[in-house]
């Protein structure tokens, strides 16, 4: 791990990505310490102020400090990203390995299930789900988990299919190794690398999806701060002040760049075809 980190930091883009990701993660984790104000406390007399020493990014229409809301919004974004990617990864790996290692008919059923999910446009699926069960953080996470599972499942299945016919797997089976042992000890370590790259590239997508749903008012409930809801406030007030739009956009741009750079560096390190001599 330390070796991987050292090699990433030798790449300029990898270094930038790592710094951005660490910066955003730390600022979100320490929001309670760093944020100068309660992100949901209303101060209507201070509404729509521009940046100042008291309010680094200004205030919104309810007089709430935008810098504090951006910091706490990071907690929501990371929570959604980590929980949903983690859950999707877990379920995707399980189904992918079963599909790849199991009988053909089971593979077909699981693939049909994946294709069915992927045939729904993600945003439409999210809007329909929210309309049915109501907006909440849990709904957003559930939508992301369901729509992301096939991404991981397909990768794992492909990897599993290519590994299952290897000589060492055949030898393990001949010696009577259980399926669980084969999958856990031999298959999983071989698929986890590509999955990590995929997951790191998916994080900004998931954060953008959460922000998008919150922008549409379908994400987290008020008054919970979210980058998307800050952007939505900013959109309606664009003719009064540009600061909420700027405040909501900055972290989204930074986190997208950060995880993309980091993911690409990881890919360059792990993928033998792209591995650079660094």
């Amino acid at each position, binding site marked *: 791990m330390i070796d991987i980190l050292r090699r990433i930091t030798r790449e300029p883009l990898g270094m930038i990505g790592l710094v951005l990701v660490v910066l955003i993660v730390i600022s979100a984790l320490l929001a309670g310490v760093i944020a100068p104000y309660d992100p949901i406390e*209303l101060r209507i007399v201070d509404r729509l102020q521009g940046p100042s020493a008291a309010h680094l990014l200004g205030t919104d*229409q*309810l007089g709430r400090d935008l810098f504090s809301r951006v910091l706490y919004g990071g907690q929501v974004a990371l929570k959604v990203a980590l929980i949903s990617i983690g859950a999707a990864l877990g379920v995707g790996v399980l189904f992918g390995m079963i599909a790849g290692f199991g009988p053909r008919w089971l593979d077909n059923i699981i693939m049909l299930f994946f294709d069915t999910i992927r045939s729904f446009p993600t945003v439409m699926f999210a809007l329909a789900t929210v309309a049915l069960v109501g907006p909440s953080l849990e709904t957003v996470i559930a939508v992301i988990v369901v729509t992301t599972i096939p991404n991981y499942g397909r990768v794992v299945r492909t990897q599993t299919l290519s590994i299952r016919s290897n000589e060492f797997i055949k030898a393990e089976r001949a010696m009577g190794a259980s399926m669980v042992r084969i999958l856990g000890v031999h298959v999983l370590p071989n698929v986890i690398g590509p999955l990590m790259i995929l997951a790191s590239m998916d994080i900004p997508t998931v954060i953008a999806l959460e922000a998008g749903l919150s922008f549409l*008012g379908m994400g987290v409930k*008020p008054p919970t701060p979210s980058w998307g809801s800050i952007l939505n406030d900013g959109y309606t007030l664009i*003719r*009064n002040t540009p600061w909420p739009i700027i405040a909501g956009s900055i972290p989204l741009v930074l986190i997208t760049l950060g995880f993309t750079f980091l993911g690409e560096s990881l890919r360059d390190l792990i993928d033998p075809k792209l591995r650079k001599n660094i």
Partner: protein
Amino acid sequence: MQTKQRNKLILNPDRRQFLQTSGALGFAAATGALPQIVYAQGKKILKVRAYADMRSLDPALSQGITDEEIHSCIYSKLIQYKPGREWGWQLDAAESLEQLDDTHIKFKLKQDIMFTNGYGEMTAEDVKYSFERILDEKVESTNKPDWGSLKEVVVDGKYEGTIVFDEPYPPAWNIALPYIVGNIVCKKAWEEAGGRIDTTTPCGSGPYVHKEWQPKQKTILARNPDWHGGTAAFDEIHIFPIDDENTAQIAFESGDIDYTRVSLSAVVNLKASPPENSTVEDYPSLYYVWVGMNVENEVTSNQNLRKAIQHCIDVPSILQASYFGAAGAATGIIAPGLIGHREKSMVPPTADITKAKEYLAAAGMDSASVTLDVLNKAANVTTAQVIQATCAQAGINVDVNLHESGAFWSLGDKSAGERYKDVQLILNRFSMAPDPSYATAWFVTDQRGVWNWEWYSDAEFDKLEAAAKANSDQAARHQMYQKMQDMMEESGAYRFITHEATPVIYRNTIKPAFRPDGLPLLRNFSAA
């Protein structure tokens, strides 16, 4: 009655052409190349924005004000709303109109009012047909309630007739004769069309004729050369459906349109520095916004809890945060300028947390937790958060549920499932016509689970509601409607917020005409 429709402009070749043309015209106007309103190909064209697209050209099937803005241009009525700051009417197709007694209105048509496309002269038979078809079950008119107790129209001669009601119906003068159901259509043409029309019309008699409808892009009206009222001010009126007010403002600033309503958040800036050669005006609105509380729900059935919530909601903070100080506090559901308006509400607009805590204690609670359902619009979400914050001060936790339009408008509808039972607090907004009966009608017992989502029910209220709309004594009506709003407020099921406002902007090259609530009367627009 509520604003549901959403429209988007589609980028197709026509739209592209429109953008190119309007962009060029906007540039020309901005650079002073066009000193007057747009003269495209020598035509004098008025370009205005409507918040929704046209849906029907049949007055019986009109979906509300956006359709009526078109209908009032292409059809005639016995009377029309009078432009200005006070409610009133002026004669249109009628030469005279007289209330004979509580249930009879006598009219005499002007002579030589011609329908377009060769359908001949307007007669009392056309008036009878137009009004009575609204009551016809086969027509399935959504606007039937506007005619109240209309019984029939008796034709007394070629141009004369009598409108007969089963019982007195004073609202006819405010929301029937000069509004949607007062439009007069041609009996012969409508019968030829099978009794109802859709988005094309066989004929009209107003200052303009319907020329073209490009769905979700624009409606074009052209001058009617045979209009009985003289010469219409413009060769054409182009009506663009633009849902979003920010977009409409951009369209105005770029010169694409000559008039639009603007958002309340823009008013201060626009007044401080209006676009060149334009005027910003404020009109009061008739809309009413309130927080309703479901008296049948297990939690909010406690009247003391409801009263605690009434006192928790700080209306001035909401007006500042959500309406940018551009709207005033409502005292009820009936706006200033209408019969029945109350000067003061029983619960003062400013929150009283001490009193709220007293009511909470009387409810046997130290704290409470309720849900607030809200339509997902910026002003509503902001309002909900202000309510959430002030209620928290009294120990009442408000969980805000946001809904998109379709889900929201089915929340309290008992025919749409069981969800209406879960409604506790709801932030609602209804549109309104200039008669108090139009406001109170939705809160009677029969409307529970239809539009009465609070499930408020009071036999005395129902009795007053029926009596008030059938009473010709305006002073008595005034007192009755005030009493009804007192009863609503006393129930604890309502916290009145605002009637909003209607800020408009128009180019100084036109002379607009508005109802007292700021809605446009396009037929009266003229060049400056």
